[in-house]
């Protein structure tokens, strides 16, 4: 073997080794979003850090309050404010839901206000999190004798996009 051939063989071995390491790391990467975790005691549920936990609980609280509140008088602004907190498929889902309530909320002078009465962490990595939120949603309008209150249970899924936590899924349970 010439020296060049030896170098080529050595490089080939290194390439194979590096490919193996890469493959192994790929299997170890954060892919918990596929686990569909709903409970903090489920296998795979973890806590990245106390700081991440505090952050995502706060974001879920604010997001649920804003997304579940709107008034017929300020519908466009309320929708824009809510959309600012969302990412990906959540935007389409929200637009579809709101399209269904626009007409009736105008004609019935609907005012819907949400109050978050509890937040709890299900799972959080540094880029993906799920929070259980209890929301009291009060609906008032011309067609209602007295305001109606719904006691909701919502699973809020968030992703960190460019440093900001945004809502990627909302599941009313």
């Amino acid at each position, binding site marked *: 073997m010439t020296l060049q*051939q030896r170098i080529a063989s050595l*490089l080939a071995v290194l390439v194979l080794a590096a490919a193996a390491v890469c493959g192994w790391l790929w299997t170890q*990467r954060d892919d918990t979003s596929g686990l569909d975790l709903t409970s903090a005691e489920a296998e795979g549920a973890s806590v990245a850090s106390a700081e991440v936990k505090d952050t995502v609980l706060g974001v879920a609280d604010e997001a649920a309050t804003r997304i579940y509140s709107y008034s017929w008088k300020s519908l466009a602004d309320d929708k824009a404010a809510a959309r600012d907190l969302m990412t990906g498929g959540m935007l389409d889902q929200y637009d579809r839901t709101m399209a269904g309530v626009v007409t009736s909320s105008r004609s019935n002078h609907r005012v819907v206000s949400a109050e978050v009465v*509890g937040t709890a962490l299900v799972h959080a990595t540094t880029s993906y999190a799920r*929070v*259980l939120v209890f929301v009291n949603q009060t609906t008032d309008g011309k067609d209602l004798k007295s305001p109606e209150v719904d006691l909701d*249970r919502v699973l809020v899924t968030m992703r960190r996009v460019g440093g900001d936590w945004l809502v990627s899924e909302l599941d009313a349970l």
Partner: protein
Amino acid sequence: MGGRGTIWLIGALSVALAGLLAGIVFLVTSVDSPDEELTAAQHDVAAAARSEALAFLTVDHRTMDVVVQRVLDGATGDFKEQYESQSKRLVKEATRTQATSAGEVVALGVSDLDDDSATVLVAANSTVTNTSTEEPQVRYYRLELELVRDGNQWLTSRLRFVR
């Protein structure tokens, strides 16, 4: 293989190696390692809260001794006292109406958690039958459990329905 071919091969392998090394660096820095201690603590308290919530929502008029004992086994303090003081009435009522209730935890999360106390929220459903229901009825609950550490186990000291 000619000298020129080998040099091309060395070039190609070098490029591939550089690419793979860059990939390794990227993957190593993006691997998410959870806080193991916090994760373990969250698992422990969540498991205890889940089992207590299920015990609390379970009723079977045929085995009320077991039903009540399961709740008391995971309880302490005020919650234990309250449940104990109401258990006679619960047993009587369940037996009279031939009640059953099967609980299911829909979602569960941990709010506050420190070394010896924790607050857990549970979204749960129960399927209820008794002499006044023709079909089984599903009920929806929002529970808040406060737990305290007792040795190496977590016990529920307060349980309330979140309004």
